[in-house]
């Protein structure tokens, strides 16, 4: 069954093994993770994950609920159809010599990317944007020869004033409020 790319964002406990639990669940339920990006969130002890997976709406909703069921997850949300800001960062090491270098720099400028390292036979480009932008830059640079490529995978956030935990109030009756642990 084919579907569309979905963007899931998850707030999870910042503990060893949590990434494994999330990834393992995707694997055993038969989902191929296109990208996964993890880092700190606005709340101490919570990490934020952005997971990009392929599937139909029904399949992704099932995955979302299974991920949400894990004891380590605070909230999992499918924000694909929301109004969102999507970014990815890539480092691209391109073959360059005295003849091609200025042409590469021009292309990089057009994309509002940066050259972050220059060597005799290469330049390293840093670019931020959505996947399409990075893909376009890559296709232009490919002709020069790409020696190395590293992409972070997608991170995403909804536009407007709401936050991942805040929008949940009516559904769970403020279940995110922490009790004082003693």
């Amino acid at each position, binding site marked *: 069954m084919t579907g569309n790319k979905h963007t899931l964002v998850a707030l999870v406990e910042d503990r060893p093994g949590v990434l494994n639990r999330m990834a393992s669940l995707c694997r055993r339920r038969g989902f191929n993770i296109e990208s996964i990006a993890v880092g700190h969130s606005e709340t101490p002890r919570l990490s934020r994950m952005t997971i990009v997976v392929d599937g139909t709406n029904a399949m992704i909703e099932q995955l979302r609920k*299974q991920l949400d069921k*894990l*004891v380590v*997850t605070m909230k999992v949300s499918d924000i694909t159809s929301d109004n969102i800001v999507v970014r990815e960062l890539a480092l691209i090491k391109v073959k360059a010599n005295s003849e091609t270098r200025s042409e590469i720099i021009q292309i990089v400028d057009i994309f509002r990317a940066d050259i972050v390292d220059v060597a005799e036979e290469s330049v390293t480009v840093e670019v931020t944007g959505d996947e399409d932008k990075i893909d376009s830059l890559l296709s232009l640079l490919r002709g020069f020869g790409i020696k190395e490529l590293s992409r972070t995978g997608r991170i995403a956030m909804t536009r407007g004033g709401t936050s991942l935990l805040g929008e949940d109030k009516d559904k769970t009756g403020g279940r*995110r409020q*922490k009790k004082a642990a003693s």
Partner: protein
Amino acid sequence: MKMTGAQMMLDGLVKEGVEVTFGIQGGKVIPLFDTMPQFPQIHHVLTRHEQGAAHAAEGYARATGKVGVCIATSGPGATNLVTGIADAFLDSVPMVAITGQVNRPDIGKDAFQEVDITGITLPITKHNYLVLDTPSMPRIVREAFYLARTGRPGPVLIDVPGDVFMEETEFHYPKEFDLPSYKPTLRGHPAQINKAAKVINDARQPVILAGRGVIVSGAYAELKELAEKAQIPVITTLLGISAIPESHVLSYGWLGMHGMVHANMATDAADTIIAIGMRFDDRATAKVSAFNTRARIVHIDIDPAEIGKNIKVDVPIVGDVKTVLTQLNKVVETSQHIDWISQLDEWRRTHPSLNIRDSESVLPQYVVRQIYEATKGEATIVTGVGQHQMWAAQYYHYDHPNSLITSGGLGTMGFGLPAAIGAQVGRPEAIVWCLDGDGSFQMTIQELATIQQERLPLKIAILNNGFLGMVRQWQELFFGKRYVATPLSGPDFVKVAEAYGIPGTMAKRREDVIPAIEQALSEPGPFLIDFRIEPEENVYPMVKLGGSLVELLEGEDVKKGVVKS
């Protein structure tokens, strides 16, 4: 106050109300066992294999509703628990499994008897813990029991390095604990309750499909009230058997692969299905794409992830079955479905699923029915997995709540004997019968020693056909009668039992059956009967390979030669 890790663990178990544990000693849990005499409230049952310990803990939990506890050492001890943990996971059985682990400095070094059991059990536990910090032990034990028994119950594993058991640190018992990301929904959403009530009130041909969730939640009275108030026939899943007394006028047996024909037909024809605490397992739905596509479906389950997983439903209600049914019963209207119910009665009359034919030989159906007669339906029945399991589910009559204990989701051969041990420990006054097959029984046969050591009055009936019978049935029907790797030349089970100090007898002819059962019941202690049943008897009804609920083989078809092998 200072305590060792082992003391904190056992103190935690006592505070959680644990009275019995099942398991086996081993290098890394010696300190835990060494501490047990300081906690005489806990009785330890020594099994003969860790798989037995896990199933016994399950049997105990299924029989009592309390959390079953099993203990094993690191490495092979821990991996031997895996089958039982997976079984508990699939059937939502509350369990805490405690494993020893190599000492903290040795973790990750491939030390002697080291396995990554938290990694191995990741997909088959509700949650698991590796205790690296001794003072966290009391909190972890509390959380583990809370997770195991609340929401949708399930197994939780605690892996404890040997040096954590031995380390003495300051002890703080957590009065409260915080699992901010775990808050099961118990009450149904009022809007959904009203929607469901409307669907039920509008129904003309409704059925209730009751699953194990009714039993777990103890919602017997609420289920009965709903069925009676709205006059809705109740069909159960295999694990839902005894959610409603089978002699109740609205009880119409169980559905699925080997369910009753009329139950399958009713499920297929219903215009409204109220699914309660069940998960549309493929053995219950048969071909899932052909499962009643016309009906409006109300699905009540405590696990949101079960909603819409296998079957698209119209009105989902997430919540505890007992709570939701209490809410629902207030808004569902009294109604009648006289024509529909007489239609079900007609199907039941014209498609008798449970006839027993006349035979000089020992028929398994007859054996089960005679055990029912002799125990007046008062026994707790525990089964292994295979043909005997289906006959036990079909031909015993379950009128008492939670009176059938069987491995449904995982279908674990070898479940019967150790689970029966756990059930008998949990219900010391009950008459517990282990109905097993000769194949299934031999997978955990060593637990006979546990019965002897614990002096449990368990009755064991082996429906011995000298085959891995369910597989043989498939070979007969779908693989040209090529009986590859299914004939078993079993041991003399009566002699085996005798070697373990358990009396027994063999029943070879029909007239041996009743005396053997009576002998078993008159014996104050354990007793084993080896029933030499008709070797190639099949389980009917049976849904055809890949068929829908109503594409069935009935016993009569086979006799008429309609079914060709």
